[in-house]
């Protein structure tokens, strides 16, 4: 193993957690694995999903809940929930979004001087963004595309504003922080979007160069980060069609394609976005509730009856798709967190919701995480 290039070739075939462990074999390997161009080369390869960050939110109170759980996403075995992933940060945070190994978060409220922090839990590096105070109402998204630029990321802040006192006439405005531009670099974008919707689940899904948020009116707000253009994509299927109220989520899969997942009395459906401007979706996966139950009889019972019972928006869904990435769906079924693989139609029980806290059924923050060794200048 004398040749460094050959070492790098071998190392580039190993998962990140193995590479971190190899650093202590000897000083030479430590040097190769820390080499900047090697780390940059690694950023070009797609990393598998390792799990989901899960953070509860109070339904009514203004306070933030500090605990962030990490739910490993493994079909082949079960690993315990971890709650110390972010202990390397200087303060408690609320997770806002994640992209290609980086995580964007903000200080928990109340705070004397709140910050937005972008960090990487895999190498424990972090940086505070200067120049703006985060607030609870705005939505944030993190855009990081290592194939375009291996260290520069952007954070987009979406705020709602009213044109006048009429609540129906509000619009969304965008501010962009670019790590490249340096300190104090929040820039107000000229782009606005006429939209009264509230941004709910799945904050800031980065797919195809665009940040996406699911709204509460069957639409997806999309923001092209490079070109600063917003667009409202219609969801693939009208929810008014159903008797019982369905539940949806969005996520990225198949190399940058936006996917839309719906669980209704008709079953579990997954669409992939084909044409961005025409809101053209193709159905890529479908399974009736009966089929899901047959395939996973140990885990599901009376599914159709229970899903059909939800006729009021105030009642909690029995089956709630929370986050989706690379063909894996995290969903809550009653009091259990399940991982569903759309390719095999197999479901796996990951944990009980009680392990995640007492407030985890209403609107938690759920963010998929794929690791990377992307460096952050502190």
């Amino acid at each position: 193993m004398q040749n460094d290039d050959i070492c790098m070739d071998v190392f580039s075939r190993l998962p990140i957690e193995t590479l971190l462990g190899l650093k202590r074999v000897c000083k030479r390997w430590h040097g190769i694995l820390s080499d900047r161009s090697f780390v940059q080369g690694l950023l070009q390869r797609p990393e598998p999903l390792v799990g989901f960050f899960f953070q509860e939110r109070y339904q009514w109170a203004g306070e933030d809940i500090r605990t962030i759980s990490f739910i490993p996403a493994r079909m082949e075995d079960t690993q315990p929930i971890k709650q110390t992933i972010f202990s390397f940060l200087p303060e408690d945070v609320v997770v806002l979004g994640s992209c290609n190994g980086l995580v964007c978060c903000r200080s928990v409220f109340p705070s004397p001087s709140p910050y937005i922090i972008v960090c990487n839990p895999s190498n424990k590096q972090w940086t505070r963004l200067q120049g703006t105070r985060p607030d609870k109402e705005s939505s944030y998204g993190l855009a990081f595309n290592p194939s375009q630029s291996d260290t520069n990321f952007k954070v987009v802040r979406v705020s709602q504003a009213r044109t006048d006192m009429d609540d129906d006439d509000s619009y969304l405005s965008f501010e962009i922080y670019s790590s490249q531009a340096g300190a104090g670099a929040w820039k107000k974008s000229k782009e606005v979007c006429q939209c009264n919707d509230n941004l709910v689940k799945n904050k800031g899904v980065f797919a195809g160069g665009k940040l996406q948020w699911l709204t509460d009116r069957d639409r997806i707000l999309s923001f092209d980060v490079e070109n600063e253009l917003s667009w409202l994509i219609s969801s693939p299927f009208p929810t008014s069609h159903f008797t019982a109220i369905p539940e949806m989520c969005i996520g990225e899969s198949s190399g940058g394609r936006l996917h839309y997942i719906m669980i209704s009395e008709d079953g579990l459906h997954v669409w992939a976005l084909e044409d961005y401007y025409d809101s053209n979706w193709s159905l890529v996966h479908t399974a009736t509730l009966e089929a899901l139950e047959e395939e996973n009889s140990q885990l599901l019972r009376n599914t159709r009856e229970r899903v059909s019972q939800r006729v009021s928006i105030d009642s909690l869904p029995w089956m709630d798709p929370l986050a989706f990435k690379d063909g894996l769906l995290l969903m809550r079924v009653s009091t259990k967190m399940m991982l569903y693989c759309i390719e095999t139609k197999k479901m796996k029980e990951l944990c009980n919701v009680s392990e995640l806290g007492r407030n985890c059924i209403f609107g938690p923050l759920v963010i998929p995480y794929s690791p990377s060794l992307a460096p952050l200048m502190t």
Partner: protein
Amino acid sequence: MITLRSSDGETFDIDEAVAVELQTIKHMMEDGCAGSQIPVPNVTGKILAKVIEYCKKHVESGKAEEQAASDDLKGWDADFVKVDQATLFDIILAANYLDIKALLDLTCQTVAEMIKGKTPEEIRRIFCIKNDFTPEEEEEVRRENQWAFE
């Protein structure tokens, strides 16, 4: 027919179709530098024989198109790399020097599989690597690079 000559003087006659799998040799032939015998100074006869065996097999199998043939080839590849470590590393160096992408891919992947799931102590033993960290240094490296998600 092309004749290759190893570092220890052994000669190997191979078809042109096989010779072009070795990109380094292919370029030499295209540039007109290839005389009656092409020297391969970095590779011994023992290793050159293995490399040629690999290329011959892959050229032959390239002609068959069925899935069954492709699965057979994978099995053949798996057996091909069942050699002692020193030989495996020599084959990697030869594949690198002779620019045979598929063979380099196969052998590097094999070494990667050898590393996966092993502790640093096991890896040092397998690859005969001396630990040049002090216990304190090693502990610091371990702590800094602790995988957060396990």
